[in-house]
């Protein structure tokens, strides 16, 4: 399959409702309506037409932005309705021609990003307490239905035509890539045989049967659709979480090129690229000043609150690396800053989060960003060198890393645990990084709670918190060699190995979705039956029929 020659154009993840091309965010009292109306020639890259509300990454970047802004900027919103402005079509999923023109790596990162966005939508309902309703005013197929499934409540118009469907297997020879199959049986708990039948019927299921099978929650005749929708909104509103006061504007981040031109610097985050060694240094700095301890002071600081801004910047840096620097296989995580200030900021945030929605949103945001770090298919090495003192929330970067190196020297770096390491920032598997790390010894995690003093490298090593602690004589060489060695391994094998090792412990909807995506969908995306000369994805939309190699594994 031809890969897009424009794959290398850098992608920007900045968005704002005032510049959305594909969505309208309409706010009426406590109901927000996010309506999809994809501009056909508004693709992120040339070469495909976004017909029938099909989407590409650009469409999803706006969706993610809208979800994020509802959390922070619109506390008055209690119900989010996701619908379409197009007649008879809700959304037809990811654009097939876009997928066909994209490199494998781009497809994988695209699917990962859209999956993250849908999980953020679920996080919005589950933790922020904004109820989510999907109003299917027309057919939702593939990714369109997967987006619907990420909402709590699905209403389908009954017009003898509109259906929900997952046509990937019968039409395209691939899988629904955004958690569709998993959500069918795991979230909506559709019976597996019905789910099987549903997933192989290209035209999908309509009306009453869609309700009977559990594919949607309501089916409402077209003439009464708006009225029915209104009733659902009323019902959902009662279950929403009350949030008060003005919102907090998510002001744009201000990245700038580093002086050497090989990196990007934000206020709290610096990204330094080493193209030759295929590594990037990702540095996250602690707060420069004491952070607010009251809700009003926190509100005043708004988006410049360290914990919000720093993690937004970290998020931006990760997306930059994922999409625009695919050959950078190893991220060197570094932290700096005053541990006491970090711990104080953590403590204030945790204290306020029980009563203040803004503090709580900041925490939820940190959680999501750290999950994105866990889910990044690049090697993560945490390096704690001279003069570094890591504490609390920043230490999560160390625990997210595949390996950590801490200099063992008199007056060397320290590692200090705090409450942030014991609950508020879980991984996709529902456990904290420390719980996942010490799966063989849960009591050790409890013992660590009492270990509040700064730990030297030796002590951190004894406690199992870091991997290697070379002394000052060995430090430079050990770190250099470990990095060089890692960067030389097969990137595919590393991706598989790291993903297998990072998520020990229980399966959750999230881990299943990403696990299935990485294993099955990415396997199928590579197979000749999908992308070969006569593969289903290749010949889609041409007069040709796919030709399969029917041998099964």
């Amino acid at each position, binding site marked *: 399959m031809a890969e897009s020659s424009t794959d290398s154009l850098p992608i920007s993840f900045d968005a704002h409702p005032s510049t959305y091309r594909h969505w309208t965010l309409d706010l009426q009292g406590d109901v927000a309506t996010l309506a999809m109306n994809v501009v056909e020639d508004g693709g992120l890259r040339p070469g495909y037409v976004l017909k029938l509300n099909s989407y590409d990454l650009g469409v999803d970047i706006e969706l993610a932005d809208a979800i994020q802004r509802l959390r922070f900027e619109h506390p008055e919103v209690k119900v989010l309705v996701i619908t379409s402005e197009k007649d008879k079509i809700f959304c037809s999923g990811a654009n097939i021609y876009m997928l066909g023109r994209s490199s494998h790596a781009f497809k994988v990162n695209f699917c990962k990003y859209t999956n993250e966005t849908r999980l953020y939508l679920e996080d919005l309902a589950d933790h922020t307490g904004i109820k989510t309703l999907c109003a299917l005013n027309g057919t939702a197929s593939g990714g369109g239905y997967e987006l619907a499934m990420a909402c709590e409540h699905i209403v389908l118009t009954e017009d003898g035509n509109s259906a929900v469907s997952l046509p990937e297997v019968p039409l395209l020879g691939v899988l629904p890539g955004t958690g569709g199959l998993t959500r069918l049986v795991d979230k909506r708990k559709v019976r597996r045989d019905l789910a099987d039948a549903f997933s192989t019927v290209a035209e999908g299921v309509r009306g009453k049967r869609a309700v009977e099978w559990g594919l949607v929650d309501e089916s409402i005749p077209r003439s009464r659709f708006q009225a029915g929708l209104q009733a659902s909104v009323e019902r959902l509103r009662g279950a929403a979480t009350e949030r008060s006061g003005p919102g907090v504007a998510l002001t744009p981040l201000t990245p700038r090129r580093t002086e050497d031109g090989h990196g990007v610097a934000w206020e709290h985050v610096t990204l330094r690229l080493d193209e030759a060694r295929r590594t990037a240094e990702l540095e996250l700095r602690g707060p420069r000043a004491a952070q607010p301890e009251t809700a009003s002071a926190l509100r005043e600081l708004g988006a410049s609150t360290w914990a919000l801004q720093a993690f937004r910047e970290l998020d931006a840096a990760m997306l930059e690396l994922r999409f625009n620097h695919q050959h950078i296989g190893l991220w060197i995580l570094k932290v700096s800053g005053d541990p006491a200030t970090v711990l104080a900021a953590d403590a204030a945030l945790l204290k306020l989060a029980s009563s203040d929605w803004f503090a709580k949103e900041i925490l939820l945001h940190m959680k999501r960003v750290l999950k994105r770090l866990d889910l990044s298919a690049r090697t993560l090495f945490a390096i704690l060198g001279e003069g570094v003192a890591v504490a609390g929330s920043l230490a999560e970067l160390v625990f997210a890393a595949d390996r950590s190196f801490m200099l063992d020297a008199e007056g060397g770096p320290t590692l200090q645990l705090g409450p942030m390491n014991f609950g508020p920032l879980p991984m996709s598997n529902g456990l904290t990084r420390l719980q996942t790390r010490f799966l063989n010894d849960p009591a050790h995690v409890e013992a660590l709670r009492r270990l509040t003093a700064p730990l030297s490298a030796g002590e951190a090593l004894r406690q199992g918190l870091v991997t290697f602690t*070379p002394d000052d004589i060995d430090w430079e060489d050990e770190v250099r060699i470990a990095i*060089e060695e890692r960067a030389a391994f097969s990137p595919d094998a590393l991706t598989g190995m790291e993903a297998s090792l990072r998520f020990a412990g229980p399966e959750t909807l999230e881990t299943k979705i990403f696990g299935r995506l990485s294993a099955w969908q990415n396997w199928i995306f590579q197979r000749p039956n999908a992308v070969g000369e006569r593969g289903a994805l290749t010949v889609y939309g041409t007069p040709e029929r796919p030709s399969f190699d029917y041998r099964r594994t």
Partner: protein
Amino acid sequence: MSNIATNEKIPNNVNLAEDRRLQRALEQWQPSFLDWWREMGPEGFQLQDIFLRTAISADTDGWAHFDYVRMPEYRWGIFLADPVPNRTIGFGDDYGKPVWQEVPGEHRNALRRLIVTQGDTEPASVEQQRFLGKTCPSLYDLRNLFQVNVEEGRHLWAMVYLLHSYFGRDGREEAEALLQRRSGNPDNPRILGAFNAPMQHWLSFYMFTYFTDRDGKYQLLALAESSFDPLSRTTRFMLTEEAHHMFVGETGILRIVERTAEIMKQHPSDDPRRHGVIDLPTIQKYMNYWYSLSLDLFGGEVSSNAAHYFASGLKGRAHEDRFEEHSALDAYYAMDVLEDGKLTREEVALRNAMNEVLRDAYVEDSQRGVDKFNKLLTEAGIDFQFKLPSRRFNRQVGLFAGVPVSVEGELLTQAAWDARRDAWLPTEADEAYIHHLMSQPVYEPGKMAHWIAPPKRGIKGRPVDFEYVRMD
């Protein structure tokens, strides 16, 4: 600067006085080394003064400094050959790029493995030879044995220097493990097979220094080509010392042959064994044994490791500069392989055949000494010629491992091979005879055991009857 790691105690040209990393590593390792030497070094000769050569610098004057020394006080040093200015990589995928002064992370594990494998042979041979002093044929030979032993010790130091300087904690642990393994110990053996074979008498010692140390020479020549410059420099310096070991082996065998020829001339119709010397067919059998064992050390004929080492520039061919082409990518090597019970000529990708290429050079080099033995026999008018067996004979490693092959290289049935085994390889009776012959040591200056001729000359201008080892 630490107590142990002084220039006075450890002669070196690696700037030990300024190297904290190396000092720290040696502080731990050097006492362990001395413990190992006392426990596993030459048995019964730790307190004697021995006329030994010590390398005190890498230049022509310094590398051969002779004096009496007690072995535990021997000044094992660390020397690298002088750097070649602007040296570039001489083979493989990175041909022509600058050589590496540091270990590239990508090759760390492979290089460490190569260095550890080479390093392990050094203490192993000291362990194998530790009882030979009790049966030596002369003080001259006894001194040569100890010279070989201390130099194997120094070669261990050379490899340990690389591990300490370039491989961090892993390297220190590997250096320690080099002192923990024991030749022939079933629970913690030395890495390579030949270095676990017992060496119970001097005929084996000469064969070992002739054949097995020659494997060492070729491994060192291949490593001297390495893109990892410190390894190249250290192995180049080791080669100067290795030459002496082969000298000991070659002259040792030659002197035995000379003595046997002498007796055979005096008693042409008698079995030489009746006159207390080693008959030529028995010498041939030991030659067959040690030669085949040493051939195994080069590894399998077709080896993906060898291809990887060559491609990555870790280990080249001996005298790589004598080859015209250095990528070895589109070339093939024709070798005999076993297919359906028959020998078949097969073209193997040259990189995968690098072990065989090195073995070729070794086979050719091994023949040179054999020619000298044969020349002596011809000149003595004795109708016997030594012959190196086929390289397929008696192999335990590679394509012909365990395959019954005659010394001429023909495939045999197992039964046919078993029937002729005792004609080709030493028997228990042969071993018993050699042991009987060598049961008494000769410690009197200038005197030789009955079964060996005296050397042509002594060492460093000293006469043959010089007191090379002070026995009091």
